[in-house]
């Protein structure tokens, strides 16, 4: 227990200490939410207010930035610098290392969600919360963490850095996070709905918005599939050194 607490504390400490990671996990989602809620430049689709789809969107973005980008970059450099190898020669063990990473992700997400929700409410967001939102966040976190570890366990640190940030931008644009999926051309939309970002955004919209009270079954299916496949693939391909 002592080791798990200490390891979790360090995981969180090192995340917070990296300025670029704070920008990614809090700065960008808050900025996008504030800017596009007040400046009317984005297509709204069939939503009354931009904040109604932007809030679920940036919440999905927050989950993606912590689960995928942060975890991928942090872990791949730990692998490259021999940290994971060195930890292998201590009594910490892989289960406790993974548990510490999981707890630290949950803690960071809790802070992200609290701040984003508070900011959205201040911007006039009027949510209608259904329990499915918890399932959506959990499945999204598992799916993106799996993708993050898949990159971290196979690619070099610099490559992971570039790939994770690049993927972040692509999924941000076509993930229904700042632009509703209904605004995308049909071919692109078809692809977007098969990606974990699009599925998570749909699930969050459907569990948080009064005017869109349903989540398409396909979105749950896609999100569930990513949540199973990505961690499995990561576990099979992960190289510790």
């Amino acid at each position, binding site marked *: 227990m002592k*080791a798990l607490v200490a*390891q979790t504390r*360090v995981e969180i400490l*090192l995340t917070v200490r990296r300025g670029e990671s704070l920008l990614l996990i809090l700065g960008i989602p808050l900025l996008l939410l504030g800017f596009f809620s007040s400046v009317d430049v984005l297509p709204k689709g069939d939503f009354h207010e931009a904040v109604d789809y932007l809030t679920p969107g940036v919440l999905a973005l927050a989950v993606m930035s912590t689960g995928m980008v942060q975890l991928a970059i942090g872990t791949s450099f730990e692998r490259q*610098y021999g940290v994971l190898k*060195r930890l*292998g020669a*201590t*009594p910490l*063990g892989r289960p406790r290392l993974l548990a510490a990473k999981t707890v630290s992700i949950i803690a960071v997400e809790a802070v992200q969600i609290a701040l984003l929700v508070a900011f959205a409410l201040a911007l006039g967001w009027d949510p209608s919360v259904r329990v499915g939102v918890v399932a959506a966040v959990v499945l999204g976190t598992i799916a993106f963490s799996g993708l993050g570890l898949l990159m971290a366990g196979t690619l070099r640190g610099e490559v992971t850095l570039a790939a994770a940030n690049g993927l972040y931008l692509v999924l941000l644009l076509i993930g229904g996070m700042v632009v509703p999926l209904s605004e995308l051309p049909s071919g692109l939309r078809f692809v977007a709905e098969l990606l974990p970002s699009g599925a998570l955004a749909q699930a969050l919209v459907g569990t948080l918005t009064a005017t869109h009270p349903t989540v398409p079954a396909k979105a749950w299916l896609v999100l569930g599939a990513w949540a199973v496949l990505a961690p499995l693939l990561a576990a099979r391909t992960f190289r510790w050194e």
Partner: protein
Amino acid sequence: MGSRDRYGRIPLGVIEVNELGVLYGNLRAVNGVSFTVEAGEVLALLGPNGAGKTTTVETLEGYRQPTFGQVRVLDLDPVADHDELVGHVGVMLQSGGVYPGIRPLEVLELFASYYDDPDDPALLLDRVGLTHRRSSPWRRLSGGEQQRLSLALALIGKPDVTFLDEPTSGVDVAGRQLIRELIAELRQTGVTVLLTTHDLEEAERMADRIVIMDQGTVVASGTPAELMRSTEDEEVRFGAPPHLDTAGLGRALNAFVDEVSLGEYKVAMAPTPNNVAALTAWLAEHDLPLADLRAGRQRLEDVFLRLTAITGEHPIIKPEARE
């Protein structure tokens, strides 16, 4: 501490390596290496780069499976008994192993949390002379400071056995002195130390015994004094037709001649030009061909020469002084 195992037995060796072989694909990184390290002993694996030192140590640390042969640490299998062994072993990797953004005291406190009865992080930080660097992240420490912190991390769990891979490489003179003192303290408290180095002088200063490796095999082993003597046992080996008159040749050379295997001879004399000339003259006189001629313990000498070429230092152990 360390002299008895948890059943109260005195183990033969805290570290036992028996005919170890490790293959990377077709490359034999380690090929038939055997040695034992007793409790409380400091043993140096000495050899040039690519000798197989790190591969041997990483097999003992449980990072690699032997392709053949066995290794035991504290009478346990480093891979199969990893969970049981890991609390008794301190490891210093050749490089890295620490979060780039973490500070020295933070990482010592983190590692201390992994062990049941750890050393005091602040005291240990002081012992490796890094108290003044406590708020600098790892990536800002100099190479020598990183090595000292790595050593502290190897010791934080109060290990019975420590594996130190190149502990003094990249460390300045004062840092080397400090690391040597720490290793001497470990020996005094009964901790078994296996370290690797390509620096002959460091091995001679720190170790009770030295195992010299080259190209995956053990070339020589013994205490520094024994190794020095062994290089003075000068000899000339040559190949010629079998069943020579070794007694007659011995009289001509005033040295003992032995046919070590069919057509392979060993002469107990220094390989001086005069001696070699006398040998070839005797062969010419008897109209005998000379297949090949090798001077001294050529392989050991060759390793020594390459080691001194790497470090640029004059070793205390010298290959034989030639006339």
